[in-house]
């Protein structure tokens, strides 16, 4: 039964991902005093794109069409490790967050290759900028989760979730506060949100992700956009599972499932609102200030790890 629920939470996350994106866009519109598109817009976009045909450059290799599918597959596989409704996940082992981070790295590697295969300057530009951002974001991401794992004395995400569920929610721990600050900054970088990257821009000066997918169309673009939404939801769910998992089911029961789903939706909504507010109030950073931004995240993550030993 737990396995069935684990599969359900994976399917739920992948299915709900575009809705999260739509919600953030809608909230931004409301804050910026616009009407904005409906929250179901991303689904309509996906359906439209799947029905169109793929337009492929003549010089492209099979990598061009293969890349979006690998990106989606790797991102979906990474979802298997994140606790959503209950502490346990489909696959869980000590050190599984390393596998998760590297599955996302696999997705990003192929996205970069697909961008280079387009044969235009935009692809290369997006690829080189993405390489810079992801290189500097990997270390704080791993160190932040490591710090939390060391405190929880369990190196698996489900173990951390179980441990945190048993803790007192009102006590602020220094390691968790620092790790949350570091991971929040990294989450902005990984999901390509302002201030690191503007997801709605059309100026090549400000593009990172948009430049990489410029040549894609039809189903290939649909797979990439969906994978992007799944990655955003996955990162948010990871933050929730690591730092605020209360509400997850401890044992199987129908009121438990309802409570878990409700709690998850509420927490995602809060995070979506935070992202919308942050995106509407801060300007995008200049490209060469992003390493500084990620340097702050690294410093916080390193301090979090050192604190695990200092504040034992």
């Amino acid at each position: 039964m737990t396995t069935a629920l684990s599969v359900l939470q994976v399917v739920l996350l992948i299915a709900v991902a575009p809705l999260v994106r739509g919600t953030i866009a809608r909230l931004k519109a409301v804050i910026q005093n616009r009407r904005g598109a409906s929250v179901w817009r991303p689904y309509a976009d996906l359906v439209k794109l799947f029905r169109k045909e793929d337009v492929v450059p003549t010089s492209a290799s099979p990598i061009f069409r293969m890349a979006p599918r690998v990106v989606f597959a790797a991102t979906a596989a990474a979802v298997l490790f994140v606790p959503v409704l209950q502490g346990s996940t489909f696959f869980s082992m000590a050190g599984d967050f390393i596998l998760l981070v590297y599955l996302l790295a696999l997705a990003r590697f192929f996205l970069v290759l697909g961008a280079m295969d387009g044969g235009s300057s935009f692809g290369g530009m997006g690829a080189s900028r993405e390489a810079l951002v992801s290189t500097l974001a990997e270390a704080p991401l791993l160190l932040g989760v490591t710090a939390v794992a060391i405190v929880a004395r369990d190196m698996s995400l489900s173990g951390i979730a179980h441990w945190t569920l048993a803790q007192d929610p009102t006590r602020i721990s220094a390691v968790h506060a620092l790790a949350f600050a570091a991971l929040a900054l990294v989450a902005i970088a990984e999901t390509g949100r302002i201030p690191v990257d503007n997801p709605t821009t059309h100026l090549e000066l400000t593009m990172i992700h948009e430049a990489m997918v410029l040549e894609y169309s039809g189903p290939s673009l649909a797979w990439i956009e969906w994978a992007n939404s799944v990655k955003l939801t996955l990162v948010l769910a990871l933050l929730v599972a690591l730092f605020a998992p209360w509400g997850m089911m401890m044992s199987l029961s129908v009121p438990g499932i309802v409570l878990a789903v409700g709690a998850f939706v509420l927490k995602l909504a809060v995070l979506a609102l935070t992202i919308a507010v942050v995106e509407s109030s801060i300007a995008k950073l200049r490209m060469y200030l992003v390493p500084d931004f990620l340097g702050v995240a690294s410093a916080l993550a390193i301090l979090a790890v050192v604190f695990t030993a200092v504040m034992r």
Partner: protein
Amino acid sequence: MQILFRTFVASLLCLPAVTLVAQRWARARAVASGVFVLALLAGAAAAGLGFWCGAAVSLDFSAVSPFPFALSLDRLSAFFLLLICVVAAPVTLFSATYVERHYQGARRAWLWVLLPLFLGSMVLVVTASTAFAFLFGWELMTLFSAGLIVVDGDSEQRRHDLFIYLLMMHAGAAAVVAAFLLFLPGAPGLGFAAMRAAGAAMPPAMRSALFILAFVGFGAKAGLIPLHLWLPRAHPMAPSPVSALMSGVMIKTAVYGFVRLTFDFLGGGPAWWGYLVLAAGAVSGVLGVLYAIAEHDLKRLLAYHSVENIGIIYLGLGAGLLFLAHGAPVWATLALMAALLHTLNHALFKALLFLGAGAIGHSAHTLDIEELGGLQTRMPVTGAAFLIACCSIVGLPLFNGFVSEWLTFRSFLGGATLANLPSAIVLPLMAGILALIGGLAAACFAKVYGVAFLGRPRSSEAEHATEVPLAMRASMEVLALCCVTIGVAPAFVLSPLAATINGFVRGAAMPEEALSLARVIPWIAVVVVLLALAATLMRRAARLTPTWACGLPGLDSRMQYTSTAFSKPLRKVFSQVYKEDRTVEVAPTDAPYFPVSISYRSVRTTSYERALYRPVMDAIVAGAYRLRRLQTGNIQVYLLYIFLALVALLVGMRFV
């Protein structure tokens, strides 16, 4: 087992003569190469029996040699012999066609004679069971590899680089000889069994001296920074298959020597050994990959990546030493498993990368990736194999690099459970450094593969490249298959590795963590492949058009990103490391906004020569000049020196 091993050794000894004789006839050459590959497969079988089944074998040549000379195959030697043979067999297959097409007459003969001798010397190093045999093989390795480098041509620059190579190898060998000689009081015959016993009984000061000598000597051979100067000079100079062997296998013998000496003979040591090795590994890893990012000559880039991967291996070894020092043998086993598995993985994918470079050089006649592009459509098999190698070296899941990197990460995370406070902080922080190295490697290989194989060709050579012949393709496919197999089903290598380490680390056991990864990874592979397949099968035919690029007309291949452009953001962020000297000239200078031509020149000075080596050299030369004053030319002064030496000996004998 005995028969296999003896056949293998015998064939390696006879092969040079056989290939020399067979040089005149093309058929005979092909047959000789086939025999060579078969011999290597026999060696691989013998090594496999030793590694998986624990069968041991020994050959004693002491009867025919003035010093004790014996070979033996315990599990660790079997592992490294397996590494050598499994990598050398496809490389030899590749060379059969490659050498045929690119070298003629005497040079080809030299290559075919030196290649089995080179492999034989490496086999000697890893199977030696006396110090004499080990050192004999060690020096021969340098000699034969230098010979193979010389085969590729001669010039002022090449002679200079070759001289640096020989000099640094010899200096490293001197340190290794000194390390072995320190065992003399306890083990007069310098047989490995005696040395093991002597190492256990040594006083701490001597152990530390031994460790330093071994670290420096083997580190020079492995290519740790700052002793790495020879690597980016020597490896690109050799023919591609030889570079594959040098980068893939030769530097691993240094890892073998270091593991043998530090873990087997000395059994680990105080914590500062671990910190030193960790620091060396971290510095080599980060700086190696940073230097690689700035390169656009494919072979130099791959050479710097060897420095980086040696850094990762040494990170694992350092963690192992720290765990042993703090009494956690199970974690030490995990760390050593990580380091040894990465040794094997690196040999596999680095050899594949160099063979790919050889294939590119064969088809496109250039190794400057700025001149390449669009090779994937023209060389599909080479491209696919190269892509697999790139994914492996970056450490992406489902490929072998990930397994060893994951094990290294896991051992670092395990360090947090240690009671000793500094180690509990340093080890998890090393995980951050390893993550940084992984990210930089991903950026670098995305650049290499993207610029060389994807997009549009940037030169007519690249445009007219064709797929390489069957033998070359097959060898690359074999290596790629090995990479993927270990990446998806690592269990079959992990258990015997644990047994190997059990052999020389007391109190070791099979760590649970390694098994858990081996259980999960195949399922993840199934999930990813199924999802990707499902998404691929759902697709319909695509419409081919020229690249859109926001509707820009007249796109040509010059408007793609170059390798220098791709690496610019990273080079700018890490500018302290590069210290670039950059000049941009716009012509004509009186109308700068309407240029006719723009020239860009960027020179990097890796400052080791200036900051580290030159001061040391100057100090040595100054010291030598001062010592010259002893040479007065007066014969009576010389007689006085002899007289003083005699007096000193007589007095000294009283105190011994």
